[in-house]
């Protein structure tokens, strides 16, 4: 019995197309094979990852969301022309319901919620971005030194790492923010500094592991035997090849640092109330949560979506950059 007969058993004639598993002769003309460059190299890790990422809905979604957040960050005026600063708010609008031109209503102070959510993006994302940059540079250097040189350098750095691990990020930041130095000049940059001080150990640990994995690879030995100095081989050969896990963790921690900023602002010891940020807005809306929950919910949604998109991006990058995990 042929497949065609099988398909017509129920009376409806379903003709199955014949499947070609091998291309017909005329489909790939001979001269096409000649056109393949002989010096064609297989795709690199990043090329392979990019091909994989382009097809992932999670990646596309998070990349799109992050793009929107960055545009809002750079040009908030494009999205809202209303002045959201406290001076421009009318107390007459206190706890006002959504109206024309003010789609999300007003806060207790009579400020436009939508405008505040838009203009609050910048400080939150700035803190997250610059903390991540600082943490990657500092933690990366510490981890690379520990992993590459090993021995006593590693032992000492590992202990220092442990000391900072024993003090959780928020705990350390709360203690530091209360220091008179930081109490008097509290702004985005002092917050970035404090978050770097307590946030670097994780990146350092990841970098150390990645560097140890790469440092004994054949190409590093080859470079060393050709007379490349230890430092140069670390910079030119080891580090570029251990970047993948660092980038994944850095993307995810960008989200966590944004959360840390808003948590500290929420506790009243992060950015000063004069700075517009989601954490500050959530904190000030907390008092009237039961009568007017919307000024709390909208910044919270904006915050969650931003954090979520960085975490999703990190997740997608991990899948794309780790071929072992992809097969599962």
């Amino acid at each position, binding site marked *: 019995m042929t497949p065609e007969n099988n398909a017509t058993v129920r009376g409806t004639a379903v003709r199955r197309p014949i499947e070609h598993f091998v291309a017909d002769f005329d489909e790939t003309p001979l001269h096409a094979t000649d056109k393949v460059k002989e010096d064609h190299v297989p795709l690199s890790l990043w090329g392979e990852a990019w091909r994989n990422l382009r097809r992932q809905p999670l990646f596309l979604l998070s990349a799109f969301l992050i793009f929107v957040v960055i545009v809002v960050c750079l040009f908030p005026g494009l999205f809202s022309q209303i002045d959201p600063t406290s001076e421009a708010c009318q107390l007459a609008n206190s706890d006002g319901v959504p109206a024309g031109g003010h789609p999300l209503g007003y806060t207790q102070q009579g400020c436009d919620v939508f405008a505040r959510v838009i203009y609050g993006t910048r400080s939150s994302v700035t803190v997250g971005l610059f903390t991540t940059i600082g943490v990657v540079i500092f933690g990366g250097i510490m981890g690379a030194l520990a992993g590459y040189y090993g021995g006593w350098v590693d032992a000492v750095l590992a202990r220092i790492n442990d000391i900072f691990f024993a003090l959780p990020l928020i705990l350390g930041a709360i203690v530091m923010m209360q220091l008179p130095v930081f109490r008097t000049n509290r702004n985005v940059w002092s917050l970035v500094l404090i978050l770097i001080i307590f946030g670097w150990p994780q990146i350092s640990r990841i970098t150390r592991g990645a560097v140890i994995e790469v440092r004994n690879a054949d190409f590093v030995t080859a470079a060393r035997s050709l007379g490349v100095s230890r430092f140069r081989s670390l910079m030119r050969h080891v580090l570029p090849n251990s970047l993948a896990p660092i980038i994944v963790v850095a993307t995810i921690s960008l989200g966590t640092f944004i959360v840390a900023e808003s948590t500290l602002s929420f506790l009243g010891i992060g950015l000063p109330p004069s700075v517009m940020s989601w954490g500050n807005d959530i904190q000030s809306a907390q008092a009237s949560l039961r009568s007017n929950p919307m000024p709390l919910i909208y910044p919270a949604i904006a915050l969650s*979506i931003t954090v979520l998109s960085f975490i999703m991006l990190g997740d997608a990058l991990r899948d794309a950059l780790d071929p072992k995990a992809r097969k599962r």
Partner: protein
Amino acid sequence: MAWYILRRFLQLVPVFLGATLLVYFLVFSLPGDPIVALFGDKPVNEAVAAQLRAQYNLDQPFWIQYLLYLKSIFTFDLGLDFTGREIATVLGEVFPVTARLAVMALIFEAVFGIVFGLIAGLRKGKLFDATVLVASLIVIGIPIFVLGFLLQFFIGVQLGWAKPTVSSAATVQDLILPAMVLGLGSFAYVLRLTRTSVIENMSADYVRTATAKGLSRGRVVRVHILRNSLIPVVTFLGADLGSLMGGAIVTEGIFNVPGVGNRLYRAVTSGEGPTVVSIVTVLVLIYCVSNLLVDLLYAWLDPRIRYDS
């Protein structure tokens, strides 16, 4: 094994000393005088200030101060806080509450995380798996204080299923909602960890062997897959206990739990140096000990790991 325990224990000593030294330095040695701050707006009475400085050893050089502090820790004589109460008594009041909260959160995240993670792993790629994965991402993405407020508002206030705030006694019933909020973030991690580990183990040789020799599906799942998948999960849970206790500041603030985080926050904002340092010291100790226990547990759970070689 004894050697390993000893070595790990010795490694903890510099971590403990370093962390306490760091906090002590931050609290007492950077510009700004905590004693002057105590007087608030009133003029500073030099005699009283000098007496207070002597009481808290603040008139000594920094190193002597720190060594005296270490001595006070090891003799369990933590002294008085700025309101004149024994710090040891204050710690005795707040630590049991937070410990109860943290253990409840741990039980919550362990039970639900492992169950959901196991089911998701066994049905990899199915609807349940996809739903749970997306949900766990969302839970990880939403900051804990937002989750806290939402749950407090909807479950506590609107639906009235649980108490929105905690009484001063902080009974187990009071702490159900705060413990859920505290454990939610780690719950998502436990879930993902269990899932990954289950998927990895399902294709292991011993699982195929177990199935091939005719064991029932339930027995294969329980004895061969689940048990082996739990090793990394247990490690995570152990290490998490320390961070739950230290990370409860926000949750305790939202639900007004009279625990460590609340007390620490109050101490930090009002500049009570001795209390801050004492609480952080105990937290660091808990972190160090729980990490040590996890390492030992690891060896006990997985006989392939041998530390003496």
